[in-house]
């Protein structure tokens, strides 16, 4: 993606990163899904941009599939889940917002630190974006840790995946479209299964709070 303006890329990277941060801040499940859609859209845009220099029909299919899964199907499932179980506000965290933000800041500092410079060799277009993408990965992981809601965890994981894809794009690590398709298909299945499970869990436990599941220990 060397032909693209650094500035443009940084904007996308910031969008991806910011939506991950906002995922931490939001109190509503619906807005979380929306934030995910924003993030996915940014990824999709990046994908499309990157496809300009090596056009192939299969790639188009792959991109379309990705867009479909990430922007439409996954949110659709999530919305369905929210609708069915009236889950609009069921957001519960371990750390309160300020502390969460501090942790995020710490993670951000971490990605700025020296050890990360090794990854800079990957950067075909400036390591700023890479660092942001990596920060997204970590912050999304932190989301899965911090949130007690099953839905938030799922979104966290998907956001993590977005972060990785973004990282790959910024580092110029595109895979062949066939593989891209496979991965997308995988994610689709994952989203379906996870949604079904979330729904089943709601039926068994009466909420999507994962901390209710603590029978298995020791």
């Amino acid at each position, binding site marked *: 993606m060397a032909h693209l303006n650094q500035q443009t890329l940084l904007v996308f990277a910031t969008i991806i990163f910011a939506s991950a941060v906002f995922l931490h801040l939001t109190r509503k499940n619906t807005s979380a899904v929306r934030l995910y859609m924003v993030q996915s859209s940014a990824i999709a845009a990046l994908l499309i941009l990157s496809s300009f220099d090596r056009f192939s029909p299969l790639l188009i299919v792959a991109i379309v599939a990705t867009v479909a899964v990430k922007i439409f199907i996954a949110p659709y499932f999530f919305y369905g889940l929210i609708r069915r179980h009236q889950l609009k506000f069921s957001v519960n965290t*371990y750390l309160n917002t300020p502390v969460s933000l501090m942790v995020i800041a710490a993670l951000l500092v*971490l990605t700025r*630190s*020296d*050890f990360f410079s*090794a990854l800079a060799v990957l950067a075909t277009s400036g390591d700023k974006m890479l660092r942001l993408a990596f920060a997204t990965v*970590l912050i999304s*992981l*932190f989301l*899965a*840790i*911090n*949130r*007690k809601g099953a839905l938030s*965890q799922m979104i966290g994981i998907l956001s993590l995946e977005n972060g990785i894809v973004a990282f790959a794009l910024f580092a110029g690590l595109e895979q062949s479209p066939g593989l891209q398709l496979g991965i997308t298909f995988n994610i689709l299945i994952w989203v379906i299964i996870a949604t079904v499970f979330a729904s089943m869990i709601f039926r068994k436990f009466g909420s999507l709070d*994962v*901390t209710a*599941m*603590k*029978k*298995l*220990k*020791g």
Partner: protein
Amino acid sequence: MLAMFAAGAFGALLLQQNDRAANLWGNCLAIAGSGTGLIFSGAALLRGTIPVFVIDSSFPLLSLSLRFDQLSAFFMMIISLVALLCSVYALGSVRHYYGKYSIGVLGFFYNVFIVSMMLVVTAHNALFFLIVWEVMSLASYFLVIYERRETASIRAGSLYFIMMHAGTAFIIFAFLLMYRLTGSVEFEAIRGGIGAASPLMKNAIFISALIGFGVKAGIIPLHVWLPSAHPAAPSHISALMSGVMIKTGIYMMIRIYFDILSGAYLWWGLALLVIGAMSSLLGVLYALSEHDLKRLLAYHSIENIGIILLGLGSALVFSSFGLNTLAALGLAAALFHTMNHATFKALLFLGAGAVIAGTHTRNIEKYGGLIRLMPQTAFFFLVGSMAISALPPLNGFFSEWLTFQALFQGVLAFDVVTKIIFILSIGSLAFTGGLAAACFVKAFGITFLARPRSEQAAQASETAMLPRLAMAGLALLIVGLGVFSGMVLRTLATVAGSMANLQGAETADVAQFKSVSIQNGFAVTSMPAIFIGVIAAAVAVTVAVSLLTRKRKTATGPTWNCGSDLTPRMEITATGFSRSLITIARGVLRPSSETEIEYHDASSYFPRVGTVTTSLHDIYQTFIYKPLRDLTTIIAGQFTKVQSGNINAYILYIFLTLIGLLFFLDLQS
């Protein structure tokens, strides 16, 4: 021979539907196998050839290498001998189990047990050795828990198995160190390559081998499994375990300290002496306080292992000074006592088995008067008791004498610190002898003499023919080994001299009238002379007295008891018998005694029933094993908290691991 045992093992397993057939098949093949083993090892021992079998395996490092050198052949002979007689005993005695437990399973593990012991003492590849060593533990474990509907057996078995496994861990460590030093697991190669090892390594090997094999041998404080495991097994198994199996630990100590590891350090021998002294003295004291016949015998095994270690320790001290002749003397003493203990302990366990079979109890307080009901068993037990109490002219005396002599030489040879340890070892050996005699007066007296103390004892009957035959064989062996100890010693001296570290050492002269002379006449004794002397004197006295008093009549009457009627309750009990000695040794034994008195009325002036219960605090449990177990449980509890059930925590672990490793990487670069 292996085939015979294998056939015995699997045949018994196949025949397990039919108790009788399984018994016959399993034990007869065991007899045949151990008979062959006896001939084979005897031949190897006497001819001095060293048959070697090596079969390569498909696994790296492992080869099935068997070597019948002198030491192996000697131990093999002991095993075969005891196994032979125990099998004869078993043929007659396992009938109790018909219909109760599977005879086939017993036969299977019995045969596996024997054959694994034989392989243990002949294996010359560390890996192969470890395998058969563990198989031996495994087979004996299943024999210990054979009476599996008894909770005590299961508990004993578990303790036994865990201790064995712990021991094996140390043994593995010892071998791993040797492997590290020499890059080989073949004994021959290790011996060749280990010479240049650093002192630290050698000491580490010494310590871990000591712990590892010490567990098997039952040295204090690693003995805790022994008093519960030996009694739990059927009696012929106890005989084998106590008489033979624990000696495999001794065998390996000899093998490693005298054959493989060259250049012993002084403190090794001294450590063995101290452990030996402790084990022998404490073992016999614990035995004194025991009222379970088989447990009592088991504690005596600890005592005797202690005596063997005294011999071994002195040999190691001598060897560290390069005094090979003296070292060979100590080693020969240890070997002799090993063999003797195998015979008399086997006999005693078999006798105990016969008694238990007759009375259906192991509580010594319930016996009494059995000498009339089971005269032959009583006689054999008496022979065994005398031998274990080191009374001349039986074999136990000679090996203790030899051990004494080895220790005496130590007092003569060394400077103050070493000397004091030797003196104290002598003292402990002397006390041990006396206490063992006291203990066996109790064991034999309370069991066989006076009146039956319970219904069961009054209804006991003599055991079957074959068990008696086995016991007779062992008793004969005890007398024979005692009387012909000179000749035996000559063979043992060559065994001791065949060790790599003691090459060509001369130990003893066997001179005119089979008298044995140690250290150029420092000590001389003749077992045949003692034997003949005592017998001749006894016969002469009997003849003379009966000639003198042939007109005098002998009447029988009730025992005088100050005019009151005598009941068995008035006889001395085992508790009472040993109580004074235990009270004296309360500093080490920590006895507890509870006195319960029931009164006729509330006034507490007229006691109706008084019960005194004495027992010992198990200081090893309290101070070593229980804290260890508690600590483990506490740590385990902490580790359980890792699996808290909270999925967020689980993800956090992954996250932290990731961050941690990345930081680690940062630090590295």
